[in-house]
């Protein structure tokens, strides 16, 4: 069983420990992890900001790079959502028949991390150990575009020692929204504060999600406010064991 890891541009640069956790996790499950170093970005940032031609270039590269991969695993629900929702349209508008066909063939082999574990590997108990109180933030793309449903909860339920604190208003956006977080920084911050209210009310020590983009926004504010809560991608929780606890990056 082989999985090609698409790390995503921002995880590669800012959250490499998430990638390391995904590798550790998958190898523990007997998956041979590949990393195609030609990868850069899926094009989400450009597509969502209106830079279609630029997004198309990135999408084209993605399809070309992964043409022969057995499966592609992506620890970012927003990137997977973008690929599923927008690649087709980009290829129809700017691409050719070959590209459309290649993508159609490739598409079923692309998995978000929790989808890969639950649907493809059919495992929920990963032998993880994480003795902390944790709140799970359901990012909008995972919730509405990927319909992840209870997959994340099922995975967390099997983590020994983990106490899942129910989060109120799980369906309400945290306010990140990509460039929205800076183009509309004030509104983004107002939405962020509302979400923090719910997170802090859980008295959890960690807030986790399947998307580091939301966590960058939530964690950035909680760090600023000395709130006593840390953010960590779910891959790191699932990779944590008694002998290999999560990496402590600053």
């Amino acid at each position, binding site marked *: 069983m082989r999985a090609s890891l698409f790390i995503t541009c921002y995880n*590669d640069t800012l959250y490499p420990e998430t990638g390391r956790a995904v590798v550790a996790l998958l190898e523990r499950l007997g998956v041979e992890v590949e990393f195609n170093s030609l990868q850069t970005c899926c094009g989400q940032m450009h597509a969502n900001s*209106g830079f279609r031609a630029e997004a198309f270039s990135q999408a084209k590269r993605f399809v070309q790079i992964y043409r022969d991969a057995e499966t592609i695993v992506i620890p970012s629900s927003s990137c997977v959502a973008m690929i599923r929702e927008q690649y087709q349209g980009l290829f129809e508008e700017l691409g050719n028949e070959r590209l459309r066909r290649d993508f159609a063939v490739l598409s079923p082999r692309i998995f978000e991390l929790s989808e890969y574990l639950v649907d493809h590997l059919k495992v929920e108990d990963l032998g993880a150990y994480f003795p902390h109180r944790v709140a799970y933030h359901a990012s909008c793309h995972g919730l509405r575009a990927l319909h992840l449903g209870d997959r994340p909860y099922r995975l967390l339920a099997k983590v020994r020692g983990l106490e899942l604190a129910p989060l109120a208003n799980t369906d*309400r*956006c945290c306010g990140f*929204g990509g460039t929205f977080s800076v183009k509309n920084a004030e509104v983004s911050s107002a939405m962020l504060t509302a979400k923090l209210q719910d997170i802090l009310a859980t008295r959890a020590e960690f807030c986790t999600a399947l998307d580091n983009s939301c966590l960058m926004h939530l*964690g*950035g504010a909680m760090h600023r406010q000395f709130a006593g809560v840390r953010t960590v991608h779910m891959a790191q929780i699932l990779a944590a064991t008694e002998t290999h606890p999560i990496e402590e990056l600053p």
Partner: protein
Amino acid sequence: MKGPESLARNKPPRVQLDPRFAPPFPQAALPVLRNTQLRKNVAHAIDVIQSKRARLVEEKADWEELRAAASDLRAHVLDNLGHYLEEFESQCTAAGGHVHWAADGTEARRIVLEIIRQKNANEVIKIKTMTSAEIQLNLFLEQAGIAAHETDLAEIILQLGGEAPSHIVVPALHVNRSQVRDIFAQRMGLPDLSDDPQALTAAARTYLRKLFLTVPVAISGANHLIAETGGVVIVESEGNGRMCLTLPQTLIAIAGIEKVIPRFQDLEVLLQVLARSATGERMNPYTSVWSGVKPGDGPQNFHVVLLDNGRSDMLRRPVERQTLKCIRCAACMNACPVYRQTGGHAYGSVYPGPIGAILTPQLQRLEHAQSLPYASSLCGACYEVCPVKINIPEVLIELRAQVTNREREEPRRFFDPLYLGLRIASFILASPRRLRLAQRLGRIVARLFASRDGWIHVLPGYGARWTRTRDLRGVPSQTFREWWSTRNKGEQ
């Protein structure tokens, strides 16, 4: 109590919702975000509607099937719009109505004024209609010496209080009871009026009764136009609609061309989704349907003004065309986490919220309201609740692409840090080698701004928009791909 005739000419609203002049959304949102009263009022209102809606949707076993049928019906109409409009015109005319076509707001206003002048009337009563607000009808009529009396409770609050609507179903949701009391006390001459909603509503009832019984011309919108019968449908709660469409001699209904539906029977779908979505009720108190003129019952002089005002242009491409499926239920803005924080005025248009963010720029042919497609985090909550399944995020992204394509031709792009940043990013991301180089450079630059704990608390320029409220974790000393390549080398 002062009667409506004794009132001085209504003052124009403090906030004029004209997309041509409204400040961009981020700027317009600022004062609203600082208005704690308004934010509280808005959140309360939408929480009430949302929870009522959720309960009813939960209870409705065929909700998704209804949505699908409503969406297909509305899409079908738009695919055949010319045909259905002609059928409506022919049936309405045969039933004794007069149908007018207005290419734009200016023409619509002129037509309405002419009809009013033909009847030598100097005042009209109005049912709430966003379409008339879209064409700024009231201001135009007032300038022509015709008093336009709103009769919907929310619209009276806004009209008397000099306010602008902030929601398309509950337009005064940003106003609380003591604010309403102050407005009524002053403008209706009721100094001892309490702020109890019951008392406020009773004051409005008394204030309007005489108007209903005497004013000879009424103006309405239309929730739907029925092609098969030439019928018009008005959905309401208070009864002011029934008053306006029944008692006066002359009735003018202004409707966007997209309002038409094929058959009377199609109401079985649309009425089931509309009230649940708009007010969280199984059915609103009053729905009125009428075709043309019936001797001895209601207005004998009936006109429909079909308004284009940019709508036919939106038919060209399916991604944009879906915007016109809208049945004006406002479920999208009730579900929107952005709207929840800002209310409607920040959108600078009588159509706020998610639907406004896609409709307003398109009606303006993207000459104005270019900031609205970006007034969204693309969370998709709107699409989830839309009873006619408008994929609002898809349209938002499409409009962003159109705005960006315009910007590509404009010199201002060289002064837009985000534009430049994204263009540079695209260049970098086109090559892994460039990316590796940029990552190394980024790490060095980030260290300049990082504090001792490795986090960045302040960034200059555009970056300050992030760091104003959030820290940024510094760039780690090793990227994932660097780690991977050393790991593999190690293994070898």
